[in-house]
């Protein structure tokens, strides 16, 4: 049976992708941020996942505003990255696992999550940045990847609670797949930041750290906040942090903390990394 070995949260902002392309990891501005990923890479090398499910939002590469699914899943054997007009380097394509994706989609729909199934997905910086953060040191991507796309762009967005529940259903979907696969889930985006308007540039360290602490031990905490409250605290783009809950919901309420890391500012954001391992017997 497929098994969730754990989850990782990560920022996915394009400034990080650019810094990696330009090899700036050891520059003073970036060093502490990137060094804090070394234990994540080490953990991944130890647990050797076969599949990574990457929870992220599309920022206007694959989906335009003519049709925005609330929750979508890639159901293909291959995913391409492409020019999104942000001046980022286009990365090598990613192998998918269509059979596994369709199983997940079916299971989610049967558990009342009406997913949009996509047989082509152009994956943008929200997907490629975490992948590169974890595995750019390898000659090729060591896992198959499955994009799980959440609308955090055009309101109304799903609630934090709904994201958490999607994660719970995702956990069931994964663990009911008959193939022996080790699955890791990346919950990406956030943390506090606002890119738009005169309020641009807010960062809320206390809220970010509270999110991280609760995320680990009290995963339902954020589900009690409305999206209005989260935007008040974390900024309009900080709302992306609700995507972490998809990852968190897929893991047991008690999971083993492997690593936590926080750095600020990274471009306009507070950047949080949490690695949780699933220690529950199946």
């Amino acid at each position, binding site marked *: 049976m497929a098994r969730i070995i754990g989850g990782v949260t990560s920022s996915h902002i394009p400034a990080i992708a650019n810094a990696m392309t330009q090899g700036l990891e050891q520059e003073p501005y970036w060093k502490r941020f990137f060094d804090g990923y070394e234990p994540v890479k080490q953990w991944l090398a130890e647990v050797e996942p076969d599949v990574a499910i990457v929870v992220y939002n599309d920022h206007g590469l694959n989906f335009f505003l003519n049709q925005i699914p609330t929750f979508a899943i890639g159901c293909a054997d291959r995913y391409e990255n492409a020019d999104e007009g942000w001046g980022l380097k286009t990365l090598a394509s990613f192998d998918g696992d269509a059979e596994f994706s369709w199983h997940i989609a079916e299971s989610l729909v049967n558990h009342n999550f009406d997913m949009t199934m996509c047989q082509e997905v152009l994956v943008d910086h929200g997907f490629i940045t975490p992948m590169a953060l974890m595995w750019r040191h390898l000659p090729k991507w060591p896992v198959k990847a499955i994009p799980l796309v959440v609308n955090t762009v055009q309101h109304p967005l799903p609630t934090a609670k709904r994201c958490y529940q999607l994660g719970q259903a995702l956990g069931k979907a994964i663990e009911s797949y008959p193939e022996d696969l080790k699955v890791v889930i990346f919950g990406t985006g956030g943390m506090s930041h606002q890119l738009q308007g005169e309020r641009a*540039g807010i960062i809320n360290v206390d809220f970010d750290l509270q999110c991280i602490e609760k995320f680990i031990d009290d995963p339902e905490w954020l589900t009690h906040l409305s999206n209005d409250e989260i935007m008040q605290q974390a900024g309009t783009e900080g709302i992306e942090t609700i995507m972490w809950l998809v990852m968190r919901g897929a893991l047991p309420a008690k999971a083993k903390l492997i690593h936590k890391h926080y750095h600020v500012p990274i471009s306009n954001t507070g950047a949080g990394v949490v690695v949780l391992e699933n220690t529950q017997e199946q």
Partner: protein
Amino acid sequence: MAWKKHEYDDIPGTYVFDGRRSHQGYALNKMAFSFNNEENREEFGRDKAAYCSKYGLTDAQTAAVLAADFLSLLRQGGNIYYLAKMTTYYGLSIQDAGASFQGISTNEFKTKLVEAGEGFEEKLQKLGGYWGG
């Protein structure tokens, strides 16, 4: 017929991108979306006003595009992620745009970000267990 009021309408200096704004900015964002394609960016560069009219932008939106006035575009329904494709075209980063929203320099904007994070390492130490303390 009326657009519903939301709690988030009261957050100062903030233009939450909802149905109302997405409706208002549809043509503008569609034009920005076309910037995913390099040929389109080049076509825009050859005659910006003509490109705006091809996408059906209003006169006020067109004027703001020509002036690279991103705060005005935000107020006219532009979505920040789509506008970023346009700021990139103009050689501006998202931080340059953020600074322009407040009428300050990019360096001042960056300083504000550093200040907002000040003391975070002591907070991590207090909480305990963080990488690098």
